C-alpha cells in the first residue's frame, strides 16, 4: 500500500470514526443505551459536550501544522480538513441543541441573547465565520480560490480565539478549564507567530543576496488532498 492508499483506507477512516465517538456516546446517553445517561440536565450536558468537542477539534485542526513541521510528517495535512469539518459539525449541533432544546425555538430569546449576552454574541459570530470555511472546504473550491483560499482560511485563527473566549466567558466561576484551552491556543498561535518571524528573517537575508528575486511560496502551503 502506498502512502495515499494508507491515508485513504486506514488513517482517514480511523480519524472519521474517532470524530464520531463523542456523537455516539451522547446518543447512547440520550437514548439510555449501554446504561449511559446524560444526567439530571441532559440539555446542558448535550450543549456543553458538543461545544467542548467542537473546541477540541478546532484546536486539533490548528495543531496539525505544528506537529507536521516539528515531527516531520508533512502528510498529516491530509487529515486536517476532516478535523475542521467535524469541528463545524459539532458547532452546528451545539447551536441546534441551544436553539431547539434549551430555548425551545423561542427566536425572540435567541435574538435577545445574541444582542445582549456578550458570550453568546461572540459564540454566534464564530459560528457564522465557520460557514464560509466549511463551504470552501472542497477540492473544487480550493482550486477555484487558489491563493485566496489560504487567506480566507486564516479566519480559523479568529474563530478559535472567539470560541475559546466564548467558553471562558460563560463559565460561572471556575475558569481553570477554559484557561487550559486558552493556554493551548496561545501555544498553537504563538508557534505560528514565531515561525513567521523566522521565515521573514530568512527571506530578508535571502532577499539581500543578489540574484534571488522572490521566495514568497510559503513552506507551509497546504497540500491538496
Amino acid at each position: 500500500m502506498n502512502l495515499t492508499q494508507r491515508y485513504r483506507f486506514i488513517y482517514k477512516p480511523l480519524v472519521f470514526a474517532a470524530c464520531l465517538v463523542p456523537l455516539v456516546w451522547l446518543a447512547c446517553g440520550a437514548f439510555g443505551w449501554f446504561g449511559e445517561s446524560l444526567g439530571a440536565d441532559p440539555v446542558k450536558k448535550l450543549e456543553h459536550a458538543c461545544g467542548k468537542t467542537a473546541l477540541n477539534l478546532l484546536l486539533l485542526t490548528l495543531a496539525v501544522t505544528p506537529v507536521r513541521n516539528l515531527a516531520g510528517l508533512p502528510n498529516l495535512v491530509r487529515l486536517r480538513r476532516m478535523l475542521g469539518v467535524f469541528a463545524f459539525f459539532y458547532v452546528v449541533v451545539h447551536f441546534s441543541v441551544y436553539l431547539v432544546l434549551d430555548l425551545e425555538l423561542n427566536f425572540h430569546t435567541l435574538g435577545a441573547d445574541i444582542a445582549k449576552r456578550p458570550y453568546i454574541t461572540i459564540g454566534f459570530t464564530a459560528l457564522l465565520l465557520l460557514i464560509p470555511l466549511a463551504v470552501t472546504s472542497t477540492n473544487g473550491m480550493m482550486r477555484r480560490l487558489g491563493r485566496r483560499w489560504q487567506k480566507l482560511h486564516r479566519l480559523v485563527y479568529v474563530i478559535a480565539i472567539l470560541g475559546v473566549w466564548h467558553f471562558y466567558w460563560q463559565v460561572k466561576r471556575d475558569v481553570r478549564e477554559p484557561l487550559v484551552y486558552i493556554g493551548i491556543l496561545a501555544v498553537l498561535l504563538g508557534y505560528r507567530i514565531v515561525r513567521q518571524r523566522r521565515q521573514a528573517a530568512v527571506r530578508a537575508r535571502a532577499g539581500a543576496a543578489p540574484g534571488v528575486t522572490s521566495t514568497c511560496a510559503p513552506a507551509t502551503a497546504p497540500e491538496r488532498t
Partner: protein
Amino acid sequence: MSTRVPRIAPSQITPSEVYFNRRMLLAGALMSGVSGLLPAAEPAPATAGTLSYQRNPRYSVTEAPNKYEEIAGYNNFYEFGTDKDSPSENARNFKTKPWSVVVQGEAEVRGTFNLEDLLKGQALEERIYRFRCVEAWSLVVPWVGFPLSSLLARFKPTSSAKYVEFTTLYDPRQMPGQRSAVLNWPYVEGLRMDEAMHPLALMVVGLYGKVLPNQDGAPLRLIVPWKYGFKSIKSIVKINFTANQPRTAWNVAAPGEYGFYANVNPQVDHPRWSQATERHIGAPFLAARRPTLPFNGYAAEVAGLYQGMDLRRYF
C-alpha cells in the same frame, strides 16, 4: 455519564456498632420532637436514615416534586467540586457526625452546640418548595426541616442583631473543592433578621423523608425558597448575629453578578444571562422552559419585606 446515587450514602450503612449507635441517637433526637404528635402511629425503630415528620400542607406547590435522583445527583456544592455531578461523588464519605454549630454575635445565648441538642424539641415537617438556581434552572423539592425562626429564637438575638450570618464547614481534607480558590472559603451567606424570621425560611435536615444526603448540604442546611439557590447555605457550622450586612461568598466573588439579596426576579437579568425564564430539571424535552415567577412564586408571602426598596439596585 450516569451517576447512580444510592438512596443511602455508604457512610450511613457502615456496619460499625459505634456508628450505628450514633445514628440511632440522632434519629431518636430527631424523632423526639414529633413523638407527642404521633401517639398511635409511632414508627418502630426507624430504618437507617428515615426521619419522623409531618407533611405541612400549607407549604406545597402544584408541580410534582423532582425525583430523588435528580435532587441528589445535580448539585452546586463547590466544596465538593464545580461539576453538577461532583458533589454526589466527592461527598460520599463526608463525616456529618459528630456535628456542632457555633453560635456567636449579638445574641444572649452563645456557644457551641451539638447538632442533636439543636434539633431537640424541633418538630420536623415536610414542605414542598420550588428551588430556583441563579443559573436559570429549577427543581421542586420535598424538604424535611423546621422553621429557621424557631431555631434562631432560642439564641435570643438582641436588638442590635440586624443580620444573621451562616458559615459552611471549612475542611479541605474532606472537601476537595476547598483546595482551590474558586471561592473565598469558607462559604458565607446571610439574611436580614426579618428575612431570617420569616416563616418560609427553613432549616433543613432531610429530603424525601430521609436524612439529607451529604451532597445536598448535610447535616444542616438553610432553604430560602424565594431567593436564588446560592443563598441557601449548606453544611452549616456557624451562626453569627451581626449589626452589619455580612460579606457573603458569591457577592464577594463577583459583586456585579450576585447581590446580597438575590431575590428571584425575572425582571432583573444576570449580567451574562436572562432570568426571565428557567429550565425545569426532569421536564420532558421541549417542555422544560417556563417563566420565572417574582420571588420564585412566593411574592404574596415575602414581597412586603422589600417594600419601598429598589430591587434593581438591591438585586
